[in-house]
């Protein structure tokens, strides 16, 4: 579904991604770990096509199409959606109006969708104006539900969210990734669901989101390099025990990409 080959990205003169290779398959959820400043957000911004992130090398392919230099709105229309960590406030633009625009002419019911993220009372508010951390997440999820992307980029779904909201957000993220379908009566849900699963790339600093979703694969991004591919829960376990310093060691290994040494135990 999404293929990244030797991707190099700079912000101004500073190289932030130094040769990223990543392949996310149809229906797969991939978790990206990494400390602050490791380039996680830059990768997401580059995949979405934000200005200021200059691709200096490599290629991004989405569903067989080269999207490396494609304008952002075309990527969105191809099926890439993004949940923003710090979205801007747009005065005078009602949340309801934006949700409707996200659907791009498809018929949706903003109330029904908003009810799923407990956000009905916010439909008449200007988008993001004075929203708390949890409210921003719910608003982003609401927009994504209306947009129905086939591939979702989540930037730190757990940041700035209290526990109560985390549960709701976790559930909705899961539902979004599982692929929401209104089944025709009598249809068998299982094969359909498998086919319609949404793919996702989730950035996480803390890993809390793993309590709610099933991530298929995971990797650590460190100083612009990808390393340490393993099962997401194992990576999390390892980072919790040893911190990200271990990644430096790992990168210093001659072959670069090394599996985590899971036989080690925490001190």
């Amino acid at each position, binding site marked *: 579904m999404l293929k990244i080959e030797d991707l190099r990205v700079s912000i101004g003169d500073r190289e932030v991604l130094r040769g990223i290779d990543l392949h996310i398959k149809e229906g797969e959820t991939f978790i990206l770990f990494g400390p602050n400043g490791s380039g996680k957000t830059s990768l997401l911004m580059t995949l*979405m096509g*934000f*200005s200021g992130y200059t691709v200096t090398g490599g290629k991004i392919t989405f569903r067989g199409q080269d999207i490396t230099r494609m*304008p*952002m*709105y075309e990527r*969105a*229309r191809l099926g890439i*959606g*993004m949940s*923003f960590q710090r*979205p*801007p406030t*747009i*005065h*005078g*633009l*009602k949340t309801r*109006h*934006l949700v409707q*625009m*996200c659907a*791009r002419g498809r018929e949706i019911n903003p109330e029904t969708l908003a009810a799923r993220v407990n956000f009905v009372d916010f439909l008449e508010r*200007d988008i993001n104006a004075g929203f708390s951390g949890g409210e921003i997440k719910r608003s982003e999820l609401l*927009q994504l539900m209306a*947009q129905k992307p086939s591939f979702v980029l989540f930037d730190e779904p757990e940041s700035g969210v209290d526990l109560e909201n985390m549960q709701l957000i976790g559930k909705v993220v899961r539902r979004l990734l599982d692929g929401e379908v209104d089944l025709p009566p009598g249809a068998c849900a299982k094969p359909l669901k498998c086919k319609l699963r949404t793919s996702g790339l989730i950035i996480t600093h803390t890993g809390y989101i793993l309590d709610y979703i099933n991530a298929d694969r995971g990797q650590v991004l460190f100083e612009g390099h990808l390393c340490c591919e393993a099962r997401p829960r194992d990576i999390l376990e390892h980072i919790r025990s040893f911190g990200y310093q271990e990644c430096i060691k790992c990168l210093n290994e001659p072959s670069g990409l090394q599996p985590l040494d899971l036989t080690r135990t925490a001190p």
Partner: protein
Amino acid sequence: MNDVNLKDFAFTGIERGEIADLRTLDASDKHRILHAGVDVDSDAASAVFMHMDQSTVHCKSHDPGLELLDFNVAMKRYDNLPEYAWKLIDRDKDEFTKNVAENTHGGYFIRTKPGVQIEKPVQSCLFLKADNAGQNVHNIVIVEEGSELHIMTGCSTAHGSTHAAHLGITEFYVKKGGKLTFTMVHNWGENATVRPRSVGVVEEGGVFQSNYVLMNAVGTLQMYPAINLNGRGAIARFNSIIVTPKGSHVDTGSRVIMNAPDTRCEIIARTITTGGTNIARGHIAGHAVPCRGHLECKGLILGGGQMLAIPELDATVEGVDLSHEAAVGKIAQDEIEYLMARGMDEAEATSTIVRGFLNVDIMGLDGPLAKAIQEQVEQIDANAM
């Protein structure tokens, strides 16, 4: 550009006959006045008034609670309206007021019955059709005690290129507990000279709400409507949306003078220049306490032009609560990209942000007027990009 020579316009000899049914106007005129918010095909009006060039051509009230007369007819019938005509505006104020006083072509006289709420709006249209025409109108609006009224007035030229002058005097009287909503849409052209002069008085517990929309080119427009809040608890609100394309010179503002305790006011202006000059004024005076007023003027420059914001607060007693906020900025790239990430192309994203900025929804308008405004918002972007 700013200097107006009234000798350039013919203030006599362009009379028009009565138009009994405004639906018989030709399609082009209808389209122009629709963009000034006047829909002659709709019957959703309590009264309909139209002034074309130098004559009142249509003047009918359909509501028994509402009196609508041509200004000159009202002057004759009511012995020159000694309580209302030229009471708030000095006829010698400037050359424009003098010109209207010497030769008033018409205008509307609107008066509600006390305690009556007029449900449907009064629809008024001031239209300039002939080239070089000068138009002198005088309007008087009286909202009697405890009554409510909404006037929607559209002012337009027949073509974007019509060379014409509109001089208009308007005096508003909102009596005790009355409420007037006055929505005015201007749809002039690049050769139009416009000099409205409006002053109002609001008595105890009364409300004056003004909505003003100017989204198309105008040669030169200068106005500074003023509302005096003279009774306890009176309220005034001004919402303005102003766009000045290249060649437009617009000098406008709203003024509220709070002369009684417990009065409140709010002046909100959203202005965009796409190459023209926009002087955005605002003035709130507090002469009694408690009183509260807020003035907000936000501007965007899209593709050139000049914006000069002049907010003024004048307080003469201790304890007033007045504030102002003025800003001139640009459309933020992160806002455009946020919307593009949802699938909107750059033009769609810009128009969505501009629409939000202009705060059109605050006026609560619907129907063809809302649609016409939306179309014009989209037009702004086409011009700016």
